[in-house]
């Protein structure tokens, strides 16, 4: 359930922050308010009157405006043209001069300086944001919703945005913004609503809020102490399975570039990567798999320089990959389970150099692997696309474990699994560890990370914000590091 009996109250003349982890239901809630989704139950009242918001059009009529994470401006058109397009009553003959005058007036009043006649593609991200806000103001919105407005802004741009918020508050607008960064919330919000797992875990005034309080509302009080005992793998002098040295990747568009990443995975070790998604996890996986070239730095696998190895070489040298989005990244939906299995290790199953395939061996391998994991899949000859999400994840796990990997990259491996299968999957990682394999576990489930990992690495904006064992780190430390509230420092190992 994305939203579960949520109550939210927004006043005019206030900046309201909606805080929570990824997947906590913040965006869903706001999209309900904007008419994008509809609530199964409950009602929305505006100035005390119940209203029906069935579409963004209704929302606009009720003077509710929203800025999405991915902007909705048309790059080829100018700022003024984009704004004109959005207005509810656009005259047949456009009055360009008047429009530009109006924009300039509003942008002065709210400190939103953008050149109205500049084409949007020339604007920086910060300027695009300003144009989006201007658009809403000119369309006479009274309630402004911003979905993670600071995600790709530079620090000074963030400050600028907060000054705009302050100005809007003074003029009686209501601003709601979604974020998962504590600092920002404390810097500019009047009231804060924290969401966790689709529910509101608390609403408080900024004056009463502290970082500690917010962190425990965001992540729950599930972890008063670290539940994991000391790792079995405190052996030193082992040859690392994987070693990244000063690895950086280029920043393209809205992607996060990695910056000077250093870390190692030793045999018999599970390294957990914590972080709000979009802070470099995908790039980290792509670099290790060889899909993404390092800008600078070097990558070593099994002690050899693997910086320039091909994907095929890396995979066949013993790296398994459990992706975050199986249907998007790892499974060919139109091929059967067996065919997908054969693809994952094609050299093993190809006969006469590729003229034929050994389908019996494929079947034996996957059945053996499924049996070992205790999983069942309805049919191996069905197209993978016909499997349910959980079965798909089981299929991937079975397929990748059949290769007897030395290093396992697991992205959110238990997402979508029922409790039993999730336990089996975790057991699998433990078993691989005791057999000397290394596991890189990327997860949003902090509980899972704390239970499984021997070492934790926290990613924030493409950098390693901190590392430590689950012993030295508390859940709160990790929460701070994930949200960037303690900057670069943190307990180091």
């Amino acid at each position, binding site marked *: 359930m994305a939203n579960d009996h949520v109550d939210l109250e927004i006043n005019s003349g206030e900046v309201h922050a909606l805080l929570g982890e990824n997947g906590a239901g913040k965006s869903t809630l706001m999209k309900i308010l904007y008419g994008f989704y509809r609530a199964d139950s409950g009602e929305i009242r505006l100035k005390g009157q119940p209203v029906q918001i069935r579409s963004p059009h209704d929302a606009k009529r009720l003077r509710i405006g929203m800025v999405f994470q991915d902007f909705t401006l048309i790059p080829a058109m100018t700022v003024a043209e984009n704004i004109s397009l959005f207005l509810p009553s656009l005259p047949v003959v456009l009055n360009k001069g008047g429009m530009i005058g109006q924009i300039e007036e509003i942008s002065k009043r709210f400190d939103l300086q953008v050149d109205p006649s500049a084409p949007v593609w020339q604007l920086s991200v910060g300027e695009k944001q300003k144009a989006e806000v201007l658009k809403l103001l000119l369309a006479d919105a009274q309630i402004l919703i911003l979905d993670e407005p600071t995600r790709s802004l530079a620090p000074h741009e963030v400050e600028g945005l907060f000054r705009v918020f302050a100005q809007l508050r003074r003029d009686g607008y209501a601003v709601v913004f979604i974020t998962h960064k504590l600092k920002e919330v404390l810097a500019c919000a009047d009231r804060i609503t924290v969401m966790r797992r689709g529910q509101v875990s608390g609403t408080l005034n900024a004056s009463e809020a502290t970082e500690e309080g917010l962190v425990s509302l965001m992540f729950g009080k599930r972890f008063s102490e670290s539940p994991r005992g000391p790792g079995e793998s405190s052996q030193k002098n082992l040859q690392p399975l994987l070693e990244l040295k000063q690895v950086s990747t280029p920043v393209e568009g809205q992607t996060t570039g990695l910056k000077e990443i250093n870390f190692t995975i030793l045999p018999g070790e599970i390294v957990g990567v914590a972080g709000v998604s979009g802070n470099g996890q995908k790039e980290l996986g792509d670099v290790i798999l060889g899909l993404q070239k390092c800008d600078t730095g070097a990558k070593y696998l099994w002690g050899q320089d693997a910086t320039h190895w091909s994907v095929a*070489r890396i995979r066949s040298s013993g790296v398994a990959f459990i992706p975050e989005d199986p249907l998007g990244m790892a499974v060919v939906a139109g091929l059967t389970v067996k*065919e997908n299995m054969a*693809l994952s290790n094609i050299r093993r199953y190809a006969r006469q150099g590729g003229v034929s395939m050994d389908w019996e061996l494929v079947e034996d391998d996957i059945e053996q692997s499924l049996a070992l994991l205790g999983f069942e899949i309805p049919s191996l000859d069905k197209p993978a696309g016909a499997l349910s999400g959980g079965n798909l994840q089981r299929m991937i796990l079975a397929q990748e474990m059949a290769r007897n990997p030395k290093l396992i990259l697991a992205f959110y491996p238990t997402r979508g699994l029922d409790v039993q299968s999730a336990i089996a999957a975790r057991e699998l990682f433990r078993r691989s560890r005791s057999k000397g394999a290394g596991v890189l576990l990327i997860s949003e489930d902090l509980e899972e990370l704390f239970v499984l990992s021997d070492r934790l690495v926290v990613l924030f904006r493409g950098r390693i914000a901190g590392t430590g064992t689950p012993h030295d780190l508390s859940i709160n430390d990790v929460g701070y590091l994930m949200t960037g509230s303690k900057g670069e420092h943190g307990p180091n190992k």
Partner: protein
Amino acid sequence: MTSSIRFFGLLGLAFLVFAVLLLAFGKNPLKAYVDIFSSTLGSTYGFSEILVKMIPLTLTAVAVAVPSRIWLINVGGEGQLYIGALFATWGALTLSTLPAWILLPFISVLGVLGGGLWGSISGILRAKGWVSETISTLLLNYVAILLVNFFVFGPWKDLESANYPQTAEFVNAATLPSFAGTRVHAGFVFPLAVLILFYFVLSRTRWGLEMRAIGGNPEAARRSGIPINGYITLLIFIGGGLAGLAGMIEVSAIQGRLRPSLSPGYGFIGFLISWMAGGNPLGIVAAAFLLAIVTAGGDILQMAHGLPGSAVNILNALILFVVLSRQGGKGGVK
């Protein structure tokens, strides 16, 4: 099942619209259709002409079907056919003293090589991510035809042909033998072998599996280490090579020399066939049969009904709409 009913329904619609057009020209559509089918299916000679047309059409269709397995759109069959013919002609003219058992295989290889290299221009541009293969293959058609014109009007022009733009006639050793009294020739083994191989590779081999993986989910294929760019380059080379082979067959068996009007649009009709058949080998045979009738029937419309020879292209275009309506909205390799 319902999709095939819809398909044949739409196909019927294409014929119906063409009938209305014939009516507008003051022709009797019923008689025209009867003539088309009776002149082709009704006599041994007519039937043999269908087979003659099916040989290049099948090859140019597979030339499109092979790259289309990974959602590459090869619209360049016509140009690849011309360059294949050009290469083969070079071999036939310069090595005319060789015996047939060396010369014929040799010019076949040249045909494949010519079409393949021509296709590779687009393949490499695509693999580098510079130019869409749809655009480049389409545009290179015109370049290829002009290139053939250059040789035929210029350096290779046969001085004995009374100023006709054509090369000297091929020697017997460079001519594919034909069967008693008809124009059906030994070149029919090529499409047969190609179709069988195409089916076998796709369904049984490692490469077929990898191609289906790229076609099904390029992201997943990339992550399992399949060299996608290698496949892009290779499959367009193979496609171009097959169209080039059709070009070699046409100059060697049918024309006997290189002429500017080498093909009545075999490359484009092959495109139509491949998409009609959805890339399925047996479907290609069936669609090639149908369009061979239409192509051969075009001559009848011209001779017996006084319509321009290109009138039949209207019917082809209508069939293309049928195909597009069935294929609508499929994605491509990212």
